[in-house]
């Protein structure tokens, strides 16, 4: 058997020079505050370590997160799976089944104790003793907890694992429960969205395997690099909001001109995600660009925040919505007012999102 191919081997094979590799190690060490000896330690680790094992499990879900993951363009998911991580268990794509598949879980737990990443798509239902999601004749929640015991960290893929998503919408008949409500003693990275953007998913994975640490998270457990700005902040239709140019009904002249979808119920102003920057499917578009308002799919409980086509009324009491309406009717000329109104809305939403942060 040939020697184990390390991370270093892989990147050398992909054309990274020794020089760039050393530089990368120094920068990483510096960012971690480890000084020059740290760089050598990192280099040594990357030259000798195996690829990080990833165990990907599925609870109550629709598999949209897996489907999104395989859409990644940079890096290609093929390269992630063959070169960057070792996706040793994923029931959606793995060749093995039966006890051959289960043996991988056992082996990973023992051989890579504390060193593997547990990726979870979907969530466990707790009603009916967990038997709304049966895995091997047992409640899924048991298998989930068992594999989490020895994991280094848990990635909660998508809105199901992060918040509960559609099956947890009222009245949540199965008592579908987010991952952080059943696993308490491991770092949990939430990557919300229904599904998350492919490049955000591979970005999180490659960040961890490349830098050997978890990305910085916000108070809700989401990587700040992708979730610290609202879609509205970088929306390409934003100038139309500021100018008071709104779509008033589907397929009207404003819709054809690409005006703001706020009045059609767009949740971009209250949704934290990278859709308006990274965009979808290799940067081709994102929901607002293609004419439909954002439905807020990366926000907690978005299914129960009123109909999707109702404009954001939860900011009523501050008069912002009224202001936006008036601006819309007043058409151009009132740009300054619109900007001011928008600044107010931003401040309000900041306060409101703090309330949600708890």
């Amino acid at each position: 058997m040939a020697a184990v191919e390390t991370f270093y081997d892989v990147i050398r094979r992909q054309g990274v020079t020794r020089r760039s590799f050393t530089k990368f190690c120094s920068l990483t060490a510096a960012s971690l505050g480890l000084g020059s000896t740290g760089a050598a330690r990192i280099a040594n680790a990357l030259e000798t370590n195996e690829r990080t094992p990833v165990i990907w499990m599925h609870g109550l879900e629709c598999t949209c997160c897996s489907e999104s993951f395989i859409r990644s363009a940079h890096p290609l998911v093929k390269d992630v799976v063959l070169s960057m991580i070792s996706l040793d268990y994923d029931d959606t794509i793995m060749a093995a089944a039966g006890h051959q598949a289960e043996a991988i879980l056992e082996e990973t737990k023992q051989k890579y104790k504390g060193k593997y990443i547990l990726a979870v798509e979907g969530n466990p239902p707790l009603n009916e003793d967990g038997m709304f999601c049966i895995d091997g004749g047992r409640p899924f929640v048991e298998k989930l907890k068992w594999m989490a015991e020895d994991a280094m960290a848990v990635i909660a893929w998508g809105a199901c694992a992060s918040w509960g998503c559609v099956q947890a919408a009222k009245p949540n008949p199965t008592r579908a429960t987010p991952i952080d409500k059943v696993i308490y003693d491991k770092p949990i990275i939430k990557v919300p969205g229904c599904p998350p953007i492919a490049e955000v998913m591979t970005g999180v994975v490659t960040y961890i395997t490349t830098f050997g640490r978890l990305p910085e998270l916000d108070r809700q457990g989401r990587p700040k690099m992708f979730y610290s700005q609202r879609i509205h902040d970088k929306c390409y239709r934003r100038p139309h909001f500021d100018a008071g140019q709104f779509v008033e009904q589907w397929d009207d002249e404003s819709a054809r001109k690409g005006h703001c979808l706020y009045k059609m119920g767009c949740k971009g102003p209250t949704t934290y995600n990278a859709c308006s920057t990274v965009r979808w499917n290799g940067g081709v578009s994102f929901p607002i660009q293609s004419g439909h308002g954002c439905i807020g799919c990366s926000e907690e409980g978005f299914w129960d925040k009123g109909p999707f086509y109702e404009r954001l009324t939860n900011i009523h009491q501050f008069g912002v919505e009224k202001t936006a309406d008036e601006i819309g009717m007043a058409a151009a000329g009132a740009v300054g007012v619109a900007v001011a109104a928008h600044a107010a809305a931003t401040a309000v939403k900041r306060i409101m999102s703090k309330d949600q942060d708890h």
Partner: protein
Amino acid sequence: MTQQSTSQDQAAPAAGAGVQTPNGFKLDNSGKRIVVDPVTRIEGHLRVEVNVDSDNVIRNAVSTGTMWRGIEVILKNRDPRDAWAFTERICGVCTGTHALTSVRAVEDALGITIPDNANSIRNIMQLTLQTHDHLVHFYHLHALDWVDVVSALSADPKETSALAQSISSWPLSSPGYFKDLQTRLKKFVESGQLGPFKNGYWGSKAYRLPPEANLMAVAHYLEALDFQKEIVKIHTIFGGKNPHPNWLVGGVPCAINIDGTGAVGAINIERLNLVKSIIDQTIEFIDKVYIPDVMAIGSFYKDWLYGGGLSGKSVLSYGDVPERANDYSDKSLLLPRGAIINGNLSEVHPVDHRDSHEIQEFVTHSWYKYGDETKGLHPWDGVTDPHFELGPNAKGTKTNIVELDESGKYSWIKAPRWRGHAMEVGPLARWVIGYAQGKPEFKEPVEKVLHDLGLPVSALFSTLGRTAARALEAQWAAYQERHFFEKLMANIKAGDLSTANVDKWEPQHWPKETKGVGFTEAPRGALAHWIKIKDGKIDNYQCVVPTTWNGSPRDPAGNIGAFEASLMDTPMVDPAQPLEILRTLHSFDPCLACSTHVMSEDGQEMTRVQVR
């Protein structure tokens, strides 16, 4: 080890020598019971238990959906215009098709018509899904049942190249290309970290391809993985993202702007050119890679013709892809509609979703409650009331099921029936119906495949037939995408830019009480949603999905569903390596993602011992 499963476990009256089902299968559960739970390379959660006789031939099959999410319950009292988004999340794989079904149901209930452009764009999106889903299914969920990845390491790249060039003009076929790929694969395998290929059944004698064909297939597995992400960009252009693009009651959300100013995001000539380019690439990939691969791989498995199940008896299709907007008559639907029962191909019955005697769902063997469980309910009057309870002869406990009791309730899937018949749905059903109707676009490709493989028509009713029908359908769908693209362009050229009808957008234009039905052909088969609306809110919503048809448990009369039927009488090489079960189940493209355990004959799980 003692043999646990005997005929007395079967509470059915005719236990002992076996039970004859009304739909023509002889069930005998006296042999060894093999449990496969969950099954990998599918979407959702599925458990299968089979009994094999002393020759390891399957003599009884029990299929069980092991997940319930309650979306129909959650939809109650919500805005009908939002329903597409909820139901779209039923499946992120056949993404969008539930949304389309939902907007059709709501439009039917509210009497909303859609513009021609919206019909063309919806069809392009639905056909895009068909091509994408079929391609990913074949290469990433099904191929490893036929292709031995490790065997590819011993291939001669020159011979692989010769093979590839003999079956297709696809350019990635030089000896150097396959050599490089083989080197990469070798390094990967030698790393000792096999990732998703770990612990596969490599080397099993059930695999029949020579190393050269295996190497070619592995190359295309990876190429298809790269390419599939391109196909879905059509959804991104019209619906903003994939998975889960956006839809709209009354049309489509993307506006068209060909000559006006502004509108970076509206559909303009750049966006249309991108759609066209993707359609062209899709056609090329399917013509030059997918179809030749299915034929090449199929030629090595010509005698593995198990798995027909219900396909030669009772098949059902609702039809889809309306040529003309708002016309859902048989004449307008390009995918055929109809039902064939008891193998009589000379008669294709009409299907009416509104007739309460046609489609009914039963829960006698499902984990739900009805007032009278001997009767079926039409979906407009459907009830979804969960009730988990194992049958009296189940082994294990409530939260540790060792063996199910199929005489009691045993699945989270209801049992839909068409006029009392269990039906198979999906690509094979659609192509059998198109074939039976004598439609040349279905009949001719089927006859060509059979001719090229030297097989009789009866070979169509098999696992292989199901896989081949899916490939033919992907090809058909890709060319239909081009047709609807051209239609859209002609319409725009003629000055019609309309994409949505908003006349009845506001609830004040809706009747106080109304109901509707929307139907499509999802990649996996016949799909319909039934909605009742009262006072502007959803009063009842029922979805009968393809895998409900195919994966249904038994009904009160004892008819078995398509999965169960397809596994019957299949010989297994080694029940500890359930390749044959996976092969046939995967040919349906089940929509129930999960993983698998196998139990030994005494009911003790082989896996559980090692795991817990």
